[in-house]
């Protein structure tokens, strides 16, 4: 064992040569070389395509959605808290970007705007303009707080009651985003006066369905300004976010906290009696999971160039949840694969499929049944791989083992 670990490859000239498995190689091969090679490969991918092409646009979306899937995977996969309102964190992240990086608050500072570490065009515009990296930090803070707040009323709840309460929060935030263009800051009780002085009498909370647009582009030090035509830089920023999320996810999963999540998921009573603090652990799951949604939300707000209330529908929560479950609940690589798969089905496969009937000479509009095809694919994929594309190791063990897995099946109640 130790000799195998010390010699990465058998020396030349040895009679039987075989490629050692990943487990037999030194630790740094798995932990350093493989990720670096992967990252490098992924970073080179956009050079195969035109920088303004729609394909790279889809890739950027896939990266952002995957970050969200990783966040939701912490809540649903690790901690076992079914969250149907993840869209709330997308909304909060995106609005943080919209509020702090656009001309939305046009009256501030006598219509001259506040500018914090911004360069280029945005530095001369009215409204609040904060550097993207700072917005990311603020979005993470906001969504973490929101996640914990949403988690609070669910602490006493079990099973699917959690689902409906999180769904309710998602819907409330969605409705508030749609109707926010009717709420004026000046009309808020108590703090309305100072707010009116700062933002003007007509300032609303959101721009409703019209959307906050344009939104500041990502603004990084030492790099040229981002544009909507050159998508490669967006891709690299998205990839960096994904890499950070992956690193955090792996470290969290194997940490004390990660093991506490899994323990709570498997058996709450046993975990609590072994000294796992249920309240703190659950709230941390909500908070951490939400933070990823906020980070990706802020990035998407900037990338989409609009923060529009119509983006924050229940379907979005279901889309992200679908990525997590399709990939394999609790599995990090599963969430990545699920995120990429569902994004590409939605934004590449289905639009391409629409051109097929006319190519083979049929007069049939496939775009009318896109929705149905998507549903059909979901059903088929789930029936073929109920445990997900890349199931978590622990769950795979449970599923193949016959005894005592009853709380994992559809039938049996948790008592």
């Amino acid at each position, binding site marked *: 064992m130790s000799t195998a670990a010390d010699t990465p490859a058998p020396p030349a000239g040895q009679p039987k040569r075989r490629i050692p498995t990943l487990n037999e190689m030194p630790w740094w091969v798995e932990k350093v070389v493989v990720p670096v090679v992967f990252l490098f490969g992924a970073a080179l991918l956009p050079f195969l395509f035109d920088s303004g092409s729609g394909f790279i646009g889809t890739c950027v979306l896939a990266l952002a959605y995957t970050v969200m899937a990783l966040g939701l995977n912490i809540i649903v996969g690790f901690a076992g808290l079914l969250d149907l309102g993840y869209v709330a964190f997308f909304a909060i992240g995106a609005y943080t970007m919209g509020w702090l990086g656009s001309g939305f608050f046009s009256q501030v500072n006598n219509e001259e705007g506040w500018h914090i570490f911004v360069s280029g065009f945005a530095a001369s515009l009215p409204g609040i303009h904060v550097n993207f990296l700072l917005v990311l930090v603020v979005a993470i803070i906001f969504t973490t707080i929101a996640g914990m707040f949403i988690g609070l009323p669910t602490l006493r709840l079990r099973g699917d009651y959690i*689902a409906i309460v999180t769904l309710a929060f998602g819907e409330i935030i969605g409705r508030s985003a749609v109707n926010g263009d009717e709420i004026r800051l000046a009309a808020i009780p108590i703090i309305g006066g100072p707010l009116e002085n700062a933002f003007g009498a007509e300032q609303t909370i959101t721009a409703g369905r019209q959307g906050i647009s344009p939104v500041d582009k990502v603004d990084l030090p030492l790099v040229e300004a981002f544009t909507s035509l050159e998508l490669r830089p967006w891709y690299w920023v998205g990839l960096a976010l994904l890499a950070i999320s992956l690193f955090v996810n792996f470290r969290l999963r194997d940490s004390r906290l990660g093991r506490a999540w899994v323990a709570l998921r498997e058996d709450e009573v046993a975990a609590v009696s072994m000294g796992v603090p249920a309240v703190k652990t659950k709230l941390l799951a909500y908070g951490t999971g939400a933070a990823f949604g906020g980070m990706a939300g802020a990035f998407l707000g900037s990338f989409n160039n609009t923060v529009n209330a119509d983006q924050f529908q229940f379907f979005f929560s279901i889309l992200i949840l679908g990525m997590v479950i399709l990939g394999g609940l609790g599995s990090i690589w599963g969430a990545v694969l699920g995120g990429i798969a569902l994004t590409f089905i939605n934004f590449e496969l289905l639009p391409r499929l629409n051109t097929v009937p006319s190519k083979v000479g049929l007069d049939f509009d496939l775009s009318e049944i896109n*929705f149905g095809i998507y549903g059909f694919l979901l059903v088929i994929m789930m029936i073929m791989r109920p445990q997900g594309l890349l199931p978590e190791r622990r769950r795979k063990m449970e599923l193949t083992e016959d005894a005592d897995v009853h709380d994992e099946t559809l039938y049996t109640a948790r008592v």
Partner: protein
Amino acid sequence: MEAASVPAGRPAAPGQAVRDAVSKYGLIVILLILPVYYAFSDIVSEDENLSRFGNNLVDGLSNGAIWALVAIGYTLVYGIVELINFAHGEVFMIGSFTTASFFGFIGLTQDTSVTLLFFGLLLTLFVAMAASGTLNVMIERVAYRPLRNAPKLAPLITAVGMSFILQNVGLLWLGGSPEGIPDLIRSQQELINIGGVSITRGDVLSIAVTIPLLLVMTAFIARSRLGKAMRATAQDPEAARLMGINVDTTISLTFLLGGILAGSAGLIYALYQTTIWYFQGFTAGLVAFTAAVMGGIGNLKGAVLGGFIIGFIQQLSDNRIDPAWTNAIVFVYLILIMVFKPSGLLGEQTRDAG
């Protein structure tokens, strides 16, 4: 109770009385705060009577009856397979669509005589129930049965997939925009007026269909052999199987019952609202699921109670506050109820409430 049994000499912690009172009466206060406020404001307003409030109540109850019927489908299915059947709202939508198409097929119009209309509607009700019931059973066969032994959340995704497929069917069936259908029963026509509270034909229809159905359904589940099998399977599928109950058939039966109720709700909705579209199932599903949870998921009476409460809150909010905020207000109510009663209003009797 427990405080009384503690030996004297240990004073209760400060604030304990307040906390007890909050947990005891908080829920009642929350449930009553909107109705009481608006009833009071009606009395002190220039009308000085409760007629507007009464109208809200009547409209709320007839809308609530629809939610109650759909919510029972959720609660039955949840009680027996622990699955949030996201496709259930779409089953309700298909019920409405079948109703509308069948009207055209048998040629019912506003000019049809009352007797013919009555039997025509009765026939349509059976057709809508049969269509939705069969559909629900088929959904279970195709999308949920293969996943019986899969991880718990896998069927949730096939449910969403089925709901997309059915929405697409609705889209192809009647197109993408809301479709008006003939107002066969003149649903907004006033039938009786009690002290300024007008009861329309639509209200009567909604209650006249819902109440008998609910009674039959409760009696069926409480009294019949099949109902007993359903309750046994809900309690413990393994033990039920050992007792010779055919679990597969029982689950199919549950989906059939849920579908039948959703179909009847679809008919009431079509006649009451006189506009239908493919997306109605999504909203109805969300509201009805909320109703089921509010009442305590798995509990039939709870689902009905939840349906009526939500119908009433919606009506108050539509009429007094702003329709744009209605959904948000319903969900705020739900969260507050969950805070005070984590297993729903009547939730003690369910097996998940633990």
